[in-house]
C-alpha cells in the first residue's frame, strides 16, 4: 500500500526512463503536490504507449475542474471544453472521425453534477470512447466546495454545517445506464490504475473507469490516502465480470470500494449503429431529393 506523497521530480524521471515522454507535454501540471491526479497523468501515457496509439491519433477531451486541466499536460490533441460538457463534445469528435482514440476526462462535479444528464446517453449509445472519472469528492478548482460524491457529514465552505445530501454512486449509475465496460481504480495504486486505463482503452464501446483520488488540499478528513488506502480492496478473484447483478452488488459496497474490472459486455457501438443506418438508407432509401431534372 502506497501512502507516501508522490513527488513531481520522481515521476518525471520515471517517465523519462520509460520512454513515455513523447506523450507528455512541456506544461507542468498545475495540481497541488501530492494530488492523486499525478498518477493518472502518468498512467494514461503509459497505457497509450503500451497500446501503440500515436499521440497524433489521440484526442483528450475534458470539462472544467482540476482534473479537466489534464489535456494541457499530455502531448496529444486536446479539447478543454465547458463545465459538464466533456461527453457531448467527445461524442461529436468520435462520431465525425472513427479513427481517433478519444479519452474523456473529468471530475465528479463535472460528470455527475452539472454534466449528469449526459452520462446515461453516452453509456446507452455505447460510443467507443474511454471516460476517466477522477473522483475526489470535492470541488478543488474553486477551493473546496461540496460535490455530488461528498459524504454526508463532510464539512466544506458551502456546507459549513456539514453536507446533508446523499452522495451519488457513479459506478452503480453507469452500470444501470448500460455502460459496456466499468472499472474502478485508486490513485494510490498507480500500476493497477495504468493497467485498467489500458484495458478501458482496448475495450470496443463505452468504457468507464472510476478513479478514487484524494484531494490533499481541501480534504483532510474524508477521502484521504489514509482513509482510502485502508478501505479499498481488489475485486474478488471469483467475481464474474460478465454478471451485471454481481457487478451491481459490488458497486453497492461503498464502504469497501472494489478495485478492478467490475463489468464487461459487448454490443454494437454507436458507430456500428450509424453504419447500419447508412446501409439501410442505401438499400431502402425513403423519399427523394428535390432537384429539377
Amino acid at each position: 500500500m502506497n501512502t507516501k506523497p508522490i513527488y513531481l521530480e520522481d515521476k518525471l524521471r520515471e517517465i523519462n526512463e520509460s520512454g513515455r515522454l513523447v506523450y507528455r507535454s512541456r506544461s507542468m501540471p498545475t495540481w497541488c503536490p501530492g494530488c492523486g491526479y499525478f498518477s493518472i497523468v502518468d498512467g494514461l501515457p503509459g497505457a497509450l504507449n503500451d497500446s501503440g496509439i500515436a499521440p497524433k491519433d489521440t484526442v483528450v477531451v475534458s470539462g472544467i475542474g482540476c482534473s479537466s486541466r489534464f489535456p494541457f499536460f499530455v502531448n496529444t490533441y486536446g479539447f478543454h471544453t465547458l463545465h459538464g460538457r466533456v461527453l457531448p463534445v467527445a461524442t461529436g469528435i468520435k462520431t465525425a472521425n472513427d479513427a481517433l482514440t478519444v479519452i474523456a476526462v473529468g471530475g465528479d462535479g463535472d460528470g455527475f453534477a452539472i454534466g449528469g444528464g449526459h452520462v446515461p446517453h453516452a453509456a446507452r449509445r455505447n460510443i467507443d470512447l474511454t471516460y476517466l472519472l477522477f473522483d475526489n469528492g470535492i470541488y478543488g478548482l474553486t477551493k473546496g466546495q461540496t460535490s455530488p460524491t461528498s459524504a454526508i457529514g463532510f464539512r466544506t465552505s458551502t456546507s459549513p454545517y456539514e453536507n446533508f445530501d446523499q452522495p451519488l454512486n457513479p459506478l452503480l449509475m453507469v452500470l444501470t445506464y448500460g455502460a459496456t465496460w466499468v472499472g474502478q481504480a485508486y490513485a494510490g495504486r498507480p500500476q493497477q490504475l495504468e493497467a485498467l486505463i489500458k484495458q478501458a482503452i482496448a475495450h470496443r464501446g463505452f468504457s468507464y473507469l472510476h478513479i478514487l483520488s484524494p484531494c490533499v488540499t481541501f480534504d483532510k478528513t474524508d477521502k484521504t490516502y489514509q482513509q482510502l488506502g485502508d478501505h479499498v480492496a481488489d475485486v474478488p478473484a471469483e467475481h464474474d465480470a460478465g454478471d451485471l447483478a454481481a457487478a451491481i452488488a459490488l458497486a453497492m459496497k461503498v464502504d469497501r470500494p472494489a478495485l478492478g474490472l467490475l463489468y464487461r459486455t459487448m454490443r454494437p457501438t454507436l458507430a456500428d449503429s450509424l453504419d447500419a443506418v447508412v446501409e439501410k438508407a442505401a438499400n431502402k432509401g425513403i423519399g427523394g431529393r428535390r432537384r429539377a431534372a
Partner: protein
Amino acid sequence: MRTDVQISICGSAGEGTIAAGDILRNALAGAGYRIISFDAYPAEIRGFGKCVARLRATTEQVYSLKEKSDVLVCLNDEHGIPHVADVRDFGAVIYEAKSITRLAEGGHVSAHVRPGQVPYPLPMRELSERATGAIRSRNLVVLGYLAGLYALAKDPFLRIIDTKFKGKGAVAEANRKAFEAGFAAGTETFKLDMVAFGPAATGLQSVMLNGNAAVVEGCLDAGIDNFFGYPITPATTIMERLAIEMPKRGKRLLQTEDEISAIAATIGAGYTGARAATATSGPGLALMSEMLGLGIMAEVPSVVFVSQRGGPSTGIPTKTEQSDLNMALYGSPGDAPRIVIAPTNVEGCYRCAGKAFEMAERYQTPVIVLLDLYLSNRYETVVMPARPPFEPNCDKPVAKQDLGAGYKRFALTPDGVSPRTLPGTAGGMHVVTGLEHNEFGRVNEQPDNHEAMSRKRHEKLLAALHHPDFTHHKRFGDEGRVALGLLAWGSTFGECLAAMFRARSDGIRCAAMKVVMLQPFPVAAVAEFIDQCEVVLVPELNFQGQFARLVQAETGRTVNRLDRVPGAPMAVADIIAEAQRLIAATRRKAA
C-alpha cells in the same frame, strides 16, 4: 396575361385542409406557376382547431401573400365564416351546399357572402359519398371543382394525387374518383367571378420547397458531414429531412439528449474538420449560448440554424416572430463575436445554409442562420442551380514548416485567421480551450494577450462582409434619393417589398433594402441607404425593435420603428399606413 391568384382553403384539423393545400400548390407548381404558400394550423396534433391553407400562384416573381384572397374554400362553415370578409370583390366563395346538420341563424357561409363576392354552393359531401362511398374525400372534390371551374389541366393534379397516396391503393383510387366528380361539377358550373388563370410559364424548372427543406438542400449541397439535433418547433423538420437524406450519402446524424449536447457535438465534429450543424429555436438557442462561446473562443467552425417562434420562454411555439435577434447576436458570456445571417425568402434559405458552412470554416467561428416559423414553413417555387454553388473546402491549412513543437494553433495573422491542423495530423498537436490562451493555445491571462486575442476574434470576422458570391444586403425600388425607405431583415422583407410596390404605384418614391448579413454589420451600405431616404421605416416582428436598435447603434442614424407581435406575418397595410403617417408628419414639419 399575367396570373395572380390567391386561394385559401379553410377547415378543421382532420378534414384534409392542409393536405388539399399541399396537393393544390404542387399541382399548380407542376403546371408551371410560381407559388408562395403559408399554412396556419393549431399546435394540437388532433382535435378540432382551425386550419387555413393559403397559396398564391403567379406568373411573375412575388415576395409575399396578398391580404385578400381571390378564392376561399370553406370545408367547414364555422371556421370559414370569419374568412369570407378576406375575399376580394368579384372573388369566389366555395362552400358546402347541403349541410347535414341544422345550422343556427347565420351559421351558414352563404349568409356572410357580401354583394360583389361570387358564391359557389357545392354539395361536397354528397359528391364525395357518391364517388367514393364516404364523405372523407370532399377535400379532393373541392380540388377537382377548382380545376374544373378555372379550366386547369387535370394531369398535374392526378400526378400529385398518385404520388401522395402511392402504396395506399384504394385511397389513391377513391381520391382520384372524388377529384373527377368535383371536376365534372366544376366544368358544369357557370363561372361568374373575375378570377382567371392565364397560361403558365413554360420551361420553368422549379421545385417546391419550404424554408426548412431549402435549408436541408443547402446543407446537402455544401457537403454536410454531421448533424446533431434535438426536436423543437419549428426547426424539427430540418432534422427529420436530414435524417432521411444524410445516411443515403454515408453521413451521420444523431439525435442528442438536449440542445447543449447538440451544439457540443456539433463543435466536437467541427474540431475534427467535419462540416457539422445543428438546428433549433429560441429556447434551444438559449441553452446553446454558453457552448457557442466555447466555439468562438476555441475558434471551431459550426453552423446553427435557428427558426424563431413567439417568445419569451416557451412563448407561442406555433406562431412566427423575429424576437431572437438579440440573443443570436450577443448571447454568450463575454465579448463573443459570431457571424449571424438571415435569409429573406426560401431560396435565400438554401443559399444561406450552404454559405454558412463556407463562412464557419473560413473564419473558424460559429455561424447562426436565423429563420422564423413563417419562413421555415412557407412554400415557394425555387429554381435550383444545376450544380451546388458552394465551396467544398474553405479550411486554412498549415504550412509543413510550421508543424512540430513550435506549432501555433492561434497564430496572429494579418487576417486574424490562424491555419489549423486537424486531429490525426502529425506534428500538429495542440489543445483548444475555452480559457484565454496565447498563440500556442496555452492558458494566458496577461492583459496584452487578452487584448490581442480579443481583437483577433473580432477582426477576423470583418472579411465576412466581403465573403464571395453572397448577397450581404440589397436595395430594390427607386434609385437615388427617395421619400420612403423600408429597411428590413428576415421574412418580413417580403411584406416590405409588397409595401414598396404599393407605395410606388401610389406615386411615392420608395426603396426597400434587405440586410442579410447581420453580424458583422454592413455599416457603410446601410448608412448610405438611410442618408438617401427622407423617411426610414424598419418593420419587424418583435416588440423591442431589435433590428432597428442594431441599425441605430451601428450607423449612428435614427430610424422609425414598426414593431408588431401578431404571431403572423406583418400586414402590408400596417406598413403602408405607418409610412404615410410618417411622410405626412415629415412634410408638415418641413412646411
